[in-house]
């Protein structure tokens, strides 16, 4: 039964993929879909191949991924640390919470011009933008992870005379891990958005730069191809991440 269903799902995925891409290509060939506006799978494939041979797409992807991943790593480290500090401290946490939420509701991409003005158009501005998008949600989730701990577990630790650091490392921190993981998963795409937006504002390399340049020449294929590459990369990263977290969180009630 279960096996049948998962086979059906796999088949369905394949059918969907073939229908969408095939339909698009067919539409483009028969002229129903104007390739000037929406390109076509074969045009994209050719464009990708040439860009690969010229080592362009690889170079620009590398630039963007560096910015995004550096922003993600730094944002995660700082976010987790801040979240833990806020969660553990009975004064700082509640005091800072409204400010952090206000800051978080600020559309951070709107900060991009300001950031570029501060640190210039190089790596730093994209890194900072990615960082700023990632850090707050990770911090809030970590904080929530500490707040959501079952008080009975803390009572149990007090009965066995656990020190504060033991309560932290044996109860509070493990309790945060699923929260941190779910925030990290969302943060991957946030970091990429940050890097791309930074490149739109001004850059000399990166996927955002490629798209921007292509749009100057009304080259839809050149705009869409890097997007696809990015999408596939982000998707692969997400899969990888989910696989890793499933292994780490097997103890969870709903292991997914």
């Amino acid at each position, binding site marked *: 039964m279960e096996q049948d269903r998962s086979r059906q799902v796999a088949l369905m995925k394949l059918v969907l993929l073939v229908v969408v891409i095939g339909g698009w290509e067919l539409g483009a060939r028969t002229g129903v879909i104007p390739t000037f506006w929406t390109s076509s799978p074969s045009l994209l494939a050719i464009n990708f191949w040439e860009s690969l041979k010229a080592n362009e797409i690889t170079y620009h992807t590398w630039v963007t991924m560096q910015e995004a991943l550096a922003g993600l790593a730094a944002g995660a480290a700082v976010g987790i640390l801040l979240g833990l500090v806020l969660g553990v401290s009975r004064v700082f946490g509640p005091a800072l919470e409204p400010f952090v939420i206000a800051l978080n509701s600020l559309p951070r991409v709107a900060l991009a011009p300001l950031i570029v003005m501060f640190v210039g158009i190089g790596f730093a501005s994209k890194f900072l933008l990615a960082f700023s998008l990632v850090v707050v949600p990770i911090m809030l989730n970590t904080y929530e992870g500490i707040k959501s701990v079952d008080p009975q577990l803390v*009572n149990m*630790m007090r*009965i*066995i*005379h656990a020190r504060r650091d*033991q309560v932290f490392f044996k109860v509070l921190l*493990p309790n945060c891990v699923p929260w941190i993981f779910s925030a990290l998963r969302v943060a991957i795409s946030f970091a990429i958005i940050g890097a791309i937006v930074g490149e739109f504002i001004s850059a000399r390399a990166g996927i955002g730069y490629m798209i921007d340049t292509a749009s100057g020449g009304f080259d839809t294929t050149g705009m869409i191809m890097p997007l696809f590459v990015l999408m596939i990369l982000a998707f692969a990263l997400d899969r990888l991440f989910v696989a890793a977290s499933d292994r780490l969180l097997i*103890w*969870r*009630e709903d292991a997914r």
Partner: protein
Amino acid sequence: MTAARKGLQVIPGGGEGRQDAVRIRGLGFRLLDRQKRPLPILDNVDLTLKDGEFVSIVGPSGCGKSTLLNFISGLVPVQSGSVEVFGEPPGGKDAAIGYVFQQHALLPWRPVLTNAAIGLEVAGVPREERSRRARDMLRVMGLDGFEDHYPREISGGMRQRVSLARTLVCNPRLILMDEPFGALDAQTKLLIQEMFLSYWEEHRKTVLFVTHDLAEAILLSDRILVMSSRPGRIMAEYEVGIQRPRNLEQVRHLPRFTELHDSIWENLRAEAMKAMQGRA
């Protein structure tokens, strides 16, 4: 230390031979309700537990039984009156107290073995030794073979036994138990009661046991205290007086069992009604 205590025992008329495990005098506790009016929860509770005694508390829901255990364990600071545990204020650094909560309070990210060993781990017992001791205790609880399972992978009865093992392996002098078997189905409950009874009859720790189940209270205890509806105070006290070692099947058929059961229930019924109407 032991010599001194032995010395005390031979002095004729020298007070109690052994130190009391718990001594509570005039314990009161009040909270503020929604309208900020004081709401008395416990009222002038007096209670003495002798060392090695098994005492149960029964009482209507919401009368303050869990609150009382929280005072003895030191989880909640005493508001008025006095609480002493082995002659010390509760919650001291080396108070050897165990507390079996109504919900098992296992760490979900730890397998059974390290859950059972957490008390030893926190106390700094070396890994080898704590693992050996935890394994032994899990075997007593009939849990061998489940050491590597996570709490979500075992049944409710097994979780409660892990929680019991975690408490007993630390060898506490006083064990507080808050409806530990309340959430179990009737058969599982019976088996665990039997197991715990034989463990207790061998080790004779001081136990304060909260339950809603009168039969359970009679089967296990030396003494049963009945609490009134809120504000809770000790309303009646019964010596069980059934010989040990006990056998659960036989105890149920003793005339003394029926007599106690009826008399406690008569006492409790009116209070339970009050508590229920208070809720409605």
